[in-house]
């Protein structure tokens, strides 16, 4: 099935671009609430659009927030206070520029595209800390310190998981990576890297059990405490955008991307494969308690590091055997 418009325009405006990012924000919030409710024997949101299972509830919530009073605290630098969450949300979505969702559906095809995307994902933590610093609140301050430490826990395992797959495929070009998985998916060739990536994804998106920077009973909302209205949507929604980006990256790196189809069907296949990363990230909220920051650091530099180093070793063995 051929694409009706030029692929790079579809990538920019529809998927994985602007519409995909905002659409994911709505669907992911709804899906998370519904899944967790199901685990806890509840119905979840139903008040808005009951026939659709409450799908429009997040839209109603977001609209309510857009038309809520915009409060800029007087102790902050108001320009930076307003700009920080916008920049954060934007930066979280930026890696999709280099990730292909189907043949031709990529904004910037680049031989090192997936490596650039990984680096862009890792750079964004700086903006979370800058945002928390701008808010100048004790809860945001503690949240920022936790964010820095959590970043220190997952950065190296995430990079090593990516390195393992680049060694295996011999390229970081999205097309080359997907083509290399035409017989067997990366997750089957190197399951250690897949597991390391999945755990690092949970840490990077501060999902349970690593929801440490914004632990509600301890630090209100951590780095987002001072925000309300539209700025809260951006500050809070940025993590969902990161989940979207890492799920897309993961589906290309580990699950064969758009294969076995191309064109529009390939786009849908990529979307479905993203669920392999998104659903566990949603469900763990209903299952796990929260780790302390020192426990997360110990996991990151202990078991997770060992797992990701073993993943690189496995890839090296595969390459030498080939």
């Amino acid at each position, binding site marked *: 099935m051929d694409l009706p418009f030029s692929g790079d325009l579809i990538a920019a405006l529809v998927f994985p671009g602007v519409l995909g990012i905002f659409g994911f924000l709505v669907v992911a919030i709804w899906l998370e609430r519904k899944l967790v409710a199901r685990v806890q024997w509840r119905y979840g949101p139903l008040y808005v659009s009951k026939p659709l299972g409450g799908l429009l509830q997040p839209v109603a919530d977001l609209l309510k927030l857009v038309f809520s009073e915009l409060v800029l605290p007087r102790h902050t630098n108001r320009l930076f206070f307003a700009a920080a969450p916008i920049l954060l949300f934007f930066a979280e979505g930026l890696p999709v520029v280099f990730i292909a969702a189907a043949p031709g559906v990529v904004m*910037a095809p680049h031989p090192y595209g997936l490596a650039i995307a990984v680096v862009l994902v890792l750079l964004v933590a700086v903006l979370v800390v800058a945002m928390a610093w701008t808010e100048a609140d004790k809860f945001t301050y503690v949240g920022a310190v936790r964010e820095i*430490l959590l970043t220190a826990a997952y950065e190296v395992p995430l990079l090593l998981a990516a390195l393992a797959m680049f060694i295996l495929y011999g390229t970081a070009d999205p097309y080359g990576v997907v083509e290399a998985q035409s017989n067997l998916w990366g997750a089957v060739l190197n399951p250690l890297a897949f597991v390391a990536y999945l755990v690092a994804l949970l840490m990077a998106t501060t999902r349970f059990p690593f929801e440490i920077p914004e632990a509600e009973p301890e630090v209100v909302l951590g780095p987002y405490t001072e925000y309300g209205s539209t*700025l809260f949507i951006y500050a809070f929604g940025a993590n969902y955008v990161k989940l979207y980006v890492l799920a897309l990256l993961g589906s290309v790196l580990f699950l064969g991307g758009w294969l076995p189809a191309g064109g529009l069907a390939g786009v849908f296949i990529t979307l479905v494969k993203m669920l392999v990363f998104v659903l566990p990230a949603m469900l763990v909220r209903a299952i796990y308690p929260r780790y302390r920051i020192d426990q997360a650091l110990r996991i990151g530099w202990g078991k997770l590091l060992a797992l990701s*180093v073993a993943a690189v070793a496995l890839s090296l063995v595969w390459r030498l055997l080939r």
Partner: protein
Amino acid sequence: MVAILIFVVVFLGALVALVVVTFLFAPRRPSEIKERRFESGGPPYGPVQRRLLMQYFGYIYLVTVVEAAVGLALVAVLTAQPSAPMLYLAIALLLAAVLIVVLRYFKVLNDIRRWS
């Protein structure tokens, strides 16, 4: 290149536009309490930006070194010839060195009382 520009303009434009909508149409009833720092009902904390507690900061030193090494390995893998056994050996040795350093200092990093 055009697609990237369109993405940046539309994405950033939409984000800014929503804030403008809020600024123009959301109700405004400013009050002193609303603009105060959120203290969660506790006593005022005073200046927030203060000296950091150093506990667990050994990890930050560790990540700056190890991440740079892994970054170098990443660049080497992506720019090397398709099959380069010597490169693979170098990566294996590098990761072995990382593991040894982490194992050597793991207990110290986890317990601030051992930092001296």
